[in-house]
């Protein structure tokens, strides 16, 4: 069973939430007054509180009663965190044009071709250090140890054509019937090979707000049916920006002397996502837009939101390393 520990709070919001969660469900949790954050994406307190509020849907939390998951006070509290987060994401995303809405599959190709992010995977391939690769893996563990799960929330909400496409992708993400091939399991093996702790949630305390925001984005899209377009667009853009960077990360590890047990996750994604990206863009996103034209704009919103948040996150990593600093909240404790 997945079980995480509550990390230390990072401010008044996470403090209030974690204190309440340690008590009986639905008592002692008052929703905050309108959350005023200058930069919600990088707000450590807001993103950690939101992350834990979502995490209770994916995992057990040590010392927290499971009935908290649907406690009205927790849902109300979460809504106050989602409001500024959603607004901050919306500010980064340009609206879709009529031409884009007319062909969502083609629009996605153009959107990912203009990826606003810095060349993180190229940097890692050619000059990243083993320590930086460890940091990269630790950041990514927040998602990769539950890879595919945030998008699976969309399954019951889709009509048959996009649903079949989503299942075609997800079945492969989950190992096609073989737990050992499940992508989250492959990632845990990579962590083990690198001497990192593969336990779910082990590094939560070290993850900065910008990393948590990349996961909160997909949890929020996935858990709200009204954002079914956005979670589909998020998956499509994720798959479409995966094959080539993953080849580079695999090459980075090979350059650093790591063996196949460390690179398998990345090498697997080169071939897998070259399949998935086509299904996700044309059959899933295109299929959903054909069935429900009213969510077409949100499909493209989800794609653009992913690219914007990934760009901000990647910039944080590269800027931290440029300054000679760790990109984590504390430098990772990794083997020599």
């Amino acid at each position, binding site marked *: 069973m997945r079980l995480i520990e509550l990390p230390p709070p990072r401010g008044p919001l996470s403090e209030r939430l974690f204190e309440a969660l340690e008590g009986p469900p639905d008592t002692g949790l008052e929703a905050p007054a309108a959350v005023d954050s200058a930069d919600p994406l990088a707000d450590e307190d807001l993103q950690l509180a939101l992350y834990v509020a979502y995490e209770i849907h994916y995992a057990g939390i040590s010392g927290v009663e499971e009935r908290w998951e649907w406690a009205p006070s927790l849902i109300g509290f979460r809504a106050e965190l989602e409001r500024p987060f959603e607004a901050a994401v919306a500010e980064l995303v340009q609206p879709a044009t009529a031409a884009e809405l007319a062909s969502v*599959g*083609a629009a996605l*190709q153009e959107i990912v*071709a203009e990826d606003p992010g810095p060349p993180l995977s190229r940097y890692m391939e050619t000059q990243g250090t083993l320590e930086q690769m460890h940091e990269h893996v630790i950041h990514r563990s927040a998602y990769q140890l539950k890879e595919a799960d945030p998008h699976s929330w969309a399954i019951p909400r889709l009509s048959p054509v996009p649903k079949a496409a989503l299942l*075609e992708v997800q*079945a*492969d993400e989950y190992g*096609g*019937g073989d737990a050992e*091939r499940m992508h989250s399991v492959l990632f845990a093996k990579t962590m083990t090979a690198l001497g990192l702790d593969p336990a779910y949630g082990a590094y939560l305390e070290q993850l900065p707000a910008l990393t948590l925001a990349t996961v909160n984005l997909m949890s929020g899209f996935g858990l709200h049916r009204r954002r079914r377009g956005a979670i589909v667009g998020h998956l499509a853009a994720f798959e*479409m920006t*995966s*094959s*080539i960077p993953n*080849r580079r990360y695999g090459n980075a590890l090979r350059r650093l002397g790591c063996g196949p047990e460390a690179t398998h996750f990345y090498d697997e994604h*080169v*071939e*897998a*996502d*070259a*399949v998935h*990206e*086509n*299904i996700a863009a*044309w059959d899933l996103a295109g299929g959903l837009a054909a069935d429900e034209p009213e969510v077409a704009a949100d499909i493209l919103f989800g794609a653009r939101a992913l690219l914007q948040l990934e760009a901000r996150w990647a910039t944080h990593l590269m800027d931290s390393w440029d300054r000679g600093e760790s990109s984590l909240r504390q430098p990772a404790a990794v083997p020599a």
Partner: protein
Amino acid sequence: MVDPNADQSRPVTITPYPDGPYLVRGDFVVTDQEGNELPTARRTIALCRCGKSRIRPFCDGTHKLIGFKAPSGTEPWPCD
């Protein structure tokens, strides 16, 4: 256990995706010229259509780097 590949009534389908690879679905086998089976781990595979993949005959997404363009349907002929 139910074998998801047991339904033989569905023919193998090869679909060119716009500006992308051929996706192959169904009860297929990929072999080299001598008939040796090339291992494929997934139910749906993507075969390279741009010629530049580094894992040919499979697709690795390189078509996006080289601006490969091709329609999903049959290309009109003769070209003008």
